[in-house]
Structures are given as C-alpha cells and as structure tokens.
C-alpha cells in the first residue's frame, strides 16, 4: 500500500480537478437515486389518490422527476469529462516524470532491461495507472459519501431499514472489493509481466526476422509468441471470471437488500407505520442505491494490475544511477588533459575485474591509443571516462579535476565520441545532426558534413537534409552512419575526442574517406582511441596495450611489437591474415 501513498503524492497537482470531478459524480448519483425513488412514490401516490378520489399536488414531484432526470444526464457528462481530462493530464505528466528518472540510469543500469520491457513500462504501465484515479479514487469517495447519505435517509423511516440497507451496501462496497483485490493481486502482477514478455518477444521476432527466417526458426518464434500470448490471455481469463462473479454478487446484494426491505417494510405498511407510496419509493430507492458501489469490486480487482504497474515504475525510478551526481557546481577545467591514476573497476557480478591499476596520462592536444583484444577492458575505460560507471579504485581526472566532481552532462559536454555504433533516430538527417548542437545554423551543419565527407551524399538526396532516416527512412550504410557520427562530433566541437574503432567494418575506400574526415576532426583536440588493431597507429603519441584489464605495455608506438609478442597476438596487418 506504500505505492498508493507515493502515487497520491504524484496526483497532488491535480487535486482541484479531482475535487470538482468527485462532486460532479456525487451529484449525478444522487440525481439518479432521486429520480427512481420519486417515480415510485409519484406513481403509487397518484394511484392511491385516484382510487380514493382525493386531490393531490402532482406538480412538485413531477418537477423533481424532470429536474433529476436533467441533472443526471448533464452531471454524468460533466463528471466524465472532468475526470478523464484530469486523468490524461496526470498520465502525461507521469510519462515525463518516468522519463526524467529513466534518463540518468542509461546506459549502466539499463543494460539488464530489454527495450521492449522499458517501452511497456512507459506506455502500458503508466496507462494502467488511469484505473487508480477514474475507477478507484473517485468512486471510493463517491461511495463513502453516498453510503452515509443513504443510511441517514433510511434512518428517517426505521432503524432496521437503515441497518439492513447499510449491511448490504457494505458487503457490496467493502467486502467484495477486498475479496476481488486479494484475488486479483497475483494475476494482475502476472499480466503485467506477461505483457512485457510478449512485447519483448514480438520485438525480437520483428527486428530479428531475417536471421530467424534464414535459420528456419520462424516457426519456433511464432510458437513462442503464441504461447506468451495465450499465457497472458489465460491469466486475464481468471480475472475476467472473478469480474463476472463480483458483478453478479453486487446485483445479488442489491436484490437481497430489496428482499429484506420487503420483509421488514410490508408489516409496517400493514400496521400503518409506513405509507403505501413510501413502500414503493423505498423499493426503487434500494435498487438504485447500489449504483454507488457497483464499480468498486472491478476497480479493486484492477488495483492489483495498477499496483503492479506502479511497482514496476517505482523499481526504475528508485534505481540509483551508477554514478551519483555531485552536489556542488561542476569544475571548469582550464585545460583538457586526461589522466587515469591507478584506476580499477569491476562490473557488478563479474568474476574478475574489468580493469586493474590503469595509469595513463594524455596531455592536452595529444593523441593516445589503447590497444587490446576483445574483453581486455578498453571499452570499460571509455565507460569510466564518460562517467557511465565510477571506478572502484583510483581516480580519473580531466584538466586536473576528478571527473566525479562533474555533473554527468557537464562532463560529457567536453567530450565527443565517434564509435562503430551510431544510433540514427527516426527523424530527419538535420534533426539527427542537431542532437549534437540544437543551435547550429544550416551553414554550420553543412560545413561539418563537408568535413565529414557526407555533405555530397546528403545534397544528392531529393530532400537533402530533410530526408527521413532511421527505421522508416533512407537506410544509411555503415560508412555513412559513421560519417554522420563524425559530423555530429564536429558540431559538438568538444575539446576531447574519443574514438571507438571508428573504421571497423568499412571497406577500404570508405575507411580512407573517414580517416581523412577524422584527421580534420582531431586537429587541436585531445584524442583517445580504442582499437584491437595494433597496425597503422603512428599518428598517435603514445599507446597503452591492455591484456585482461592490465597494462601490458605503455609508451610510444615502438613498444607495440614487444607487447604483441607477449600476448602472442600476431602483429600483422589484416592484409596478411587472410
């Protein structure tokens, strides 16, 4: 229930909306009950008067019936409008709230989550919270107020009638919701998980279809998706059956309440304690009064789903970023040399440290390369330098300041990265470039693309810089994507440049173009390259050779051959290894 309290705090900004919506809902309900009760009284009184031949004022009750019929119609419309508007405003603000908490966790803390799972949280789980407001919060308040009013009303006639009415309203409005909430909790939790798993499997199946098709695995994938889909539906079936049961039970409570009322009230009519029109009025009043509690059991059944969704959201929101942000202002480095001082780091649950005792100093404007095989820890150095993780021991400094003293964004403002993985967003080329610098002018964009050797390609596209790229747009080849990355780095214009195998997987001509672009990019910047290829590195001022996270050699490029010998890495350019 702790989640409810936390959610309530998130709902706070919308409490005026909620108050207004709740009042509208109460008025609507009362209008409806009045309509039914007044009709029963009116009809019976008219018949009795007609039979007895006495005159009666039928204008007042007739006006009451008309008035409550109008109020009911208008009230319901207004109530729904206000409450839904409030809900969707709330939901929209929750998405922003969730994103704001998700963002600091990338990438270190999000590695374990499938993007389908995260998508499911920001979409479906947040949507599931609307239930809490429209179906739980408002109806609970409405039910409480109405049960009180209804009991007081019955008390005007007889305490027993009030007691019986209250009993059945409490059974339907409190007992059934408690029961269905208890029954719905586990399946609700499971359905949330089922949905996430189904979404993840569908994403796998859609995005990985080429390989599944080729390896004849589509049938198995189809079966997997089908099994997950049926499992989700089976869990929903149980909830639905309970839903039907509580629906029937609410109806039965209303009927039984009427039934007991008849047993109690008929003798009262017989001995004159109750007037005949009052019997008809109370009978119809009883049936109508259960509208106040009817939505509650289903709402509380869904509470399980909503709370599960809330828990899934809070579990992300409560995750601490891998590196906490400092409280003070970020330092403003006067120069940009990079220093790794005895840095050691292990990933959580990893059997051995990723890097140990790393020492490296890259003077401002100089160029260094870290060479090592896959898994030797070179990517870890980048993750640490970008402050995605914090070292377990030792310090990393930029311009003499510990990078942990910087706010993440402030630190990364000084660093540009060109890597083999460039995410192109599903938008235009221009938007993709503006990510690096939203204020860049068209001239600046074109200049960067010229240097990155990609301008000519873009200019030839029919829509130029407004061409849509990414999933739905023009597919860019690996080399083109890489050059976009270089252009982004140029636009960012940061003093430190990190290169992560920038030419991997490119053909020679493309690689040559890219290197030419990079040459221009590197001018005047502090450059750190990570690579597994020891060849062709004479443009760097120093190298660090890593083996299993430890320094094997450090110095100028002349140390490479000996280091390679030591790890038995063949020091051959690729041209010979074929």
């Amino acid at each position, binding site marked *: 229930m702790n989640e409810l309290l936390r959610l309530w705090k998130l709902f706070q900004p919308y409490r005026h909306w909620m108050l207004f919506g709740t009042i509208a809902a109460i008025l609507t309900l009362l209008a409806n009950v009045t309509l039914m009760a007044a009709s029963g009284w009116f009809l019976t009184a008219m018949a009795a008067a007609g039979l007895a031949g006495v005159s009666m004022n039928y204008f007042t009750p007739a006006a009451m019936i008309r008035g409550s019929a109008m109020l009911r119609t208008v009230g319901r419309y207004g109530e729904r409008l206000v409450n839904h508007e409030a809900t969707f405003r709330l939901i929209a603000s929750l998405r922003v709230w969730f994103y704001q908490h998700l963002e600091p966790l990338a990438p270190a803390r999000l590695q374990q989550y499938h993007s*389908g799972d995260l998508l499911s949280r920001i979409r479906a789980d947040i949507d599931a919270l609307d239930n809490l407001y429209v179906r739980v919060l408002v109806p609970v308040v409405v039910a409480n107020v109405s049960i009180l009013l209804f009991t007081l009303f019955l008390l005007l006639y007889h305490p027993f009638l009030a007691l019986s009415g209250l009993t059945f309203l409490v059974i339907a409005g409190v007992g059934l919701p408690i029961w269905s909430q208890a029954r719905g909790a586990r399946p609700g939790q499971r359905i949330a998980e089922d949905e996430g798993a189904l979404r993840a499997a569908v994403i796998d199946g859609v995005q990985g279809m080429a390989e599944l098709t080729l390896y004849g695995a589509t049938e198995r994938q189809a079966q997997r998706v*089908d099994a997950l889909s049926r499992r989700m539906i089976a869990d929903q079936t149980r909830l639905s059956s309970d839903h039907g049961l509580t629906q029937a039970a609410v109806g039965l409570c209303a009927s039984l309440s009427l039934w007991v009322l008849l047993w109690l009230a008929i003798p009262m009519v017989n001995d004159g304690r109750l007037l005949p029109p009052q019997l008809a009025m109370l009978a119809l009043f009883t049936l109508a009064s259960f509208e106040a509690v009817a939505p509650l059991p289903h709402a509380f059944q869904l509470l399980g789903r909503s709370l599960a969704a809330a828990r899934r959201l809070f579990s992300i929101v409560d995750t601490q970023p891998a590196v906490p942000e400092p409280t003070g202002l970020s330092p403003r480095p006067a120069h940009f040399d990079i220093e790794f001082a005895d840095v050691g780091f292990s990933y959580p649950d990893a059997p051995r440290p990723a890097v140990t005792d790393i020492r490296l100093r890259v003077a401002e404007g100089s160029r260094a390369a870290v060479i090592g095989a896959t898994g030797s820890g070179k990517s870890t150095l980048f993750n640490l330098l970008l402050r995605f993780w914090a070292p377990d021991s030792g310090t990393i400094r930029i311009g003499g300041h510990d990078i942990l003293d910087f706010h993440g964004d402030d630190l990364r403002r000084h660093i540009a990265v060109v890597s083999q993985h460039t995410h192109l967003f599903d938008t235009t080329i221009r938007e993709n470039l503006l990510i690096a610098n939203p204020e860049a002018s068209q001239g600046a964009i074109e200049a960067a693309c010229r240097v990155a050797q990609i301008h000519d390609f873009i200019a030839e596209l029919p829509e130029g810089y407004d061409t849509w790229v990414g999933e739905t747009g023009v597919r860019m080849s690996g080399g083109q994507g890489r050059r976009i990355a270089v252009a982004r780095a140029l636009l960012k214009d940061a003093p430190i440049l990190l290169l992560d195998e920038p030419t991997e997987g490119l053909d020679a001509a493309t690689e040559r173009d890219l290197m030419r672009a990079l040459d221009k990019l590197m001018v005047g910047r502090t450059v750190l390259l990570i690579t597994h290829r020891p060849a062709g590195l004479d443009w760097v001022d120093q190298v660090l050779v890593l083996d299993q996270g430890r320094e094997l050699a450090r110095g100028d490029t002349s140390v490479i051959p000996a280091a390679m010998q030591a790890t038995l890495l063949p020091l051959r350019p690729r041209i010979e*290894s074929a």
Partner: protein
Amino acid sequence: MSVNAWLKSQRPLAGGALTRTLWLNTANGLLAVTQAWALAVILNDVIFEGAGLTDIRAWLWGLLGLFALRALIVWLAERSAFQAAADVRATLRDQVHRHLQRLGPSYLSGQRSGALVETLTKGIDDLEGYYARFVPAMTLVMILPLAILTVVMPVDWLAGLVLLLTAPMIPLFMILIGSGAEVRNQRQWKQLARMSAHFLDVIQGLTTLKLFGASRREVEVVARVSDEYRHSTMQVLRVAFLSSAVLEFFASVGIAIVAVFIGFRLYGLAVPVAPWLHVPEIGYLQGLFVLMLAPEFYAPLRNLGTQYHARMGAVAAAEQLIRVLETEPDRTNPGTEPLAATRPLGVRFEAVRFRYEEGREALQDLSLEIPPGQRIALVGTSGAGKTTVVNLLLGFLVPTEGRILIGAQSLSDIDLDDWRRHLAWVPQQPRLFQGSIADNIRLGRPEADLEAVREAARRARADGFIEALPDAYDSPVGERGAGFSGGQIQRIALARAFLRDAPLVILDEATANLDPESERLVQEGIDDLARDRTLLVIAHRLATVRRADRILVLDQGRVVEQGRHDELIETGGLYARMIAADGASHLAQGGIGQGIEDR
C-alpha cells in the same frame, strides 16, 4: 475488404462462446421481465389489497429464486463474453505474426518496428471490446427491446407506443455523432502508434542522446508527445461521452413520458394526446409493471451506446491489422520443388536485374558464378550491390528480371524453406535472441545436443569466453546481445553457422569486430568450415579475401572483373586500385602496418 466486413468475418473465431453469451444475456433480459412482474404483484397486493407477509410468502420466495438465477447467469455471461474475444485475440495474433513472417524482412525494412509491435500487442487486445462487448450489445439491442415491447403492448399499448416511437431516436443520434468520431479515432490510434514508436526510438538511443547532452532536452519532446496523445484521446472521448449523454437524455425522456402517462391515468387526469386516440384504462399493477420495464427497454440501447466506443477502438486496430494482412508476399508463386542439387552447391546468376523502386537500380544484368565447393569473395565499394546479391540468394528479394540457378534448378521454383535449410549465414551485425547462449547457437538446429553446441562454439572460437561465464552455455542473452562485445556476438553467430552444417555458407564480413587473435582463430575456423562446402564471403575489407578461389569485383550492380588475387593485381583494374587504396589507408594511419607487410 471494409473494416466492418473484416471484423464480422472474424466472428467464427469466437466459436460457440459468442452464441452462448447471446443466449445468456437474452435469458437474463427475460428474467428481468419476470422479476418486474413479481415485484409489481407484491407491491400491488400489499398496497391495494392489504396483503400481509403470509399472503405473499410464495411470491417473495419465488423472487429470491429469480435473484439467484439472474446472478448465476450474469456471471456465466461475463465469462463467455471474455472467452469469445480471447479466442479471437489468440488466433489473430498468431495469424498476423505468421503473416508478417511470410512477408519477410524485405517488408519489415519499410516499416516502423515500434508501430508493428504496437499493432501486434495492444492493437490485437483492442479487439476484445468488439467481440466481448459490442457484438453481444448489438445483437441484444435487436432482441430484448422487441421482447419487452411484445410484453408491454397487450398490457398498455399507449406506453408501448411511447417506447416504440422514442427508441429509434437513439441509434439515429448515435450514428450522427459516431460518424465524426470514427475519423478522430483513427487519428487517435495513429497518435498512439507514433508515441510508441517514438518512445522505443528514444529508449534504444538513450546512450547516444546522453553522449550529446541531449537526453534532458528530450524531456520536452516526451512531454509534447504525451500531451498530443492526451489531446487526441480526449477528442475521441468527448464525442463518446456526448453520445452517451444524448442516449441517456432520450431514455430519461422516454421513461418520464411513460411515468406521466401512467400516473395521469391512475389519478384520473386526461392524458395529453390527440383526442381520437382511445386511451386504455390501466390499473396500478399494470402501471407499475410497465414503468419498471421502461428502463429495461432502454438498457440494451444505452449499453450499445457505451460499447460503441469499444467498437471504434477495435475498428482502428483492425485497420492496422488489415493493412498487414492484405499485403501479399513479393513472391506470388512460391516454388514448391525440393532442392535437387546435392552438396556442395553451385550457384549461377543469369542476367539478374533488381530494382528497389523505379529508378533505383541496384543490380543491372548481373551474371556471376559460384562453382560448387569453392570459396568465392564478393568485393566492391558500399552501394555496389553486395548486400542485394546476398538478399537475393537468401530469398528475401526476388529478381526483377533474370534468374538465379542452383545447379540446374531456378531458385524461383525451389521451395524456399528447403533452400534455406541448405544455407548458413552470418550477417554483418548478427542479432542474438532472448534465451540462453545454447539456444542462440541452436537457432538453426534446435535438436542439437549440448556436445554439438560445444563443438560448434569451439570451432567458432567462442568456447573460451562462453565457458568462462558462470552459467556457461545456459547464460541468458539480453536484447541484441547486451552484455557481449561485438566480437563475441560475431563468434556466437559463427557458431550458429557451424552448427547448421549447411552446404552453402554466406559470411558477411565475418571477421569484422575481431581483434587479431580472435580473427586468426576465426579464420582457422572458417578454413575448417570451407572444407566440402561452398563459401561466399562478402568483404568490406580487402584483406580478408586473399585466400578466395575467385574474387568477384562488383561495381554499380555488375561484375566488372573476376579472378584470383594475383591475377587481378596483375590486370591492374578496379581491384588493384582498391588494394592500393586499402594499402594507402593503412599508410594514412601509419607506416607500421605497411612496414610489416613489406617485410
């Protein structure tokens, strides 16, 4: 096919559950009539006949039985309504997913995967409203009011007339309001799909955003996209609420008129209708009975109004589903012959042309030969057509003109499943799937035992890092192989190809992303794999093709030269120039590589 027709045509999938729902709801409606009669009799007897509890005991107990029976029916009806939609949803999700698979990767490349995922998950679930709620409501609206009318007419035809005349107003107004809502609802669904696709894009690119300090700026975009979604949702809901308010209004007016007409007659006042109508007499018992039936008469109509919204959700989802289902696979006449050629396989392209779209010629008159048992390399600059050749060979694309021969058989005649059984492929960026490492290696041979999996991993030189993991081959794989480096993913994919044991192997730059040591090991593995098999290597780095039996040089969609490395160097054509450029690029990076090669 229109959306409505399509939705109707899927009804058989709901099976008997839908019919059962209708029967149960009809029975419930008829019991409500009985209940109203019993209640009217009790009240009449007590109020006007002076009956006491003892006199009406039988009626009271009968009423109790009715209550219990109705409760049971309500429960069963809810269950079967859900079941009806559940069957439709499960079956359709499977069908649409399989249809997507038949459309294949070439269709998917033009789609937003986030939107497709949305259609397959939430879109299908939205159909529930149609089959579980709307269809029963639609059918009941034709049964119950008519049944109630046949009961009311003999009792009091004036009240019956009021009901008969007010009833058609309701669907009329609903249609009027609903026609505008349809369009808004469509827009709303597109908005939802857009929002999902956008969020997926942002989540998958979060690290990139972060590197550029743009991840905080994205907050505004998330806020804007969410707010647009709220806006369009409210537009749809406003109409839905308005239509149900109108419904409610008419129902209230109808009930009020009935009440007034009955009340006036009971009191002895003249009913305000045309004088030529001979207004029937009515007693309290009949009057109360008819008055209690009036809400029951409008209930199915009001219910239909509520469920109309559910239908609109389903219609919007169905449009997306139909769009997928009505797309035909490119290959209209799939081949059916089994592959005749035996291993090792030979492939010949004869004057193959391929166009992605008008004016975008990818291959022009491409002829090439991959003789059985040989190792062939395909080289060329980006955009030369290498990937298209691979996609044609894999059967993902179909030649616009010309043909591809496997032995003496045309690929278009061969059953694609059978053909692909003879292929192994390592794409440039292999994808790992959720499951264990062993599952991933077994992708093409699920029945393989762990020993075979290990052997394949050993030959792909992946055994070292896999066995170092705590759960070794049972270690779970995250999305796109999260937790593994590019080189490791490549080697797992290579193990996949080894385990597949196919006579034709296509390697799309298999040794990219590897450090020299792994590259050497993988190269050994590939040599191993090349024995008795036909091997097609797509090379972006020329360094990896020297050992090929033949190198095919592709330029602008045709083969411009072919031969062995030495021959091509001697010819001094495009390949020689590319090699020179390759050397130069190493030179550009430094003299060390060059120096070693010279040694």
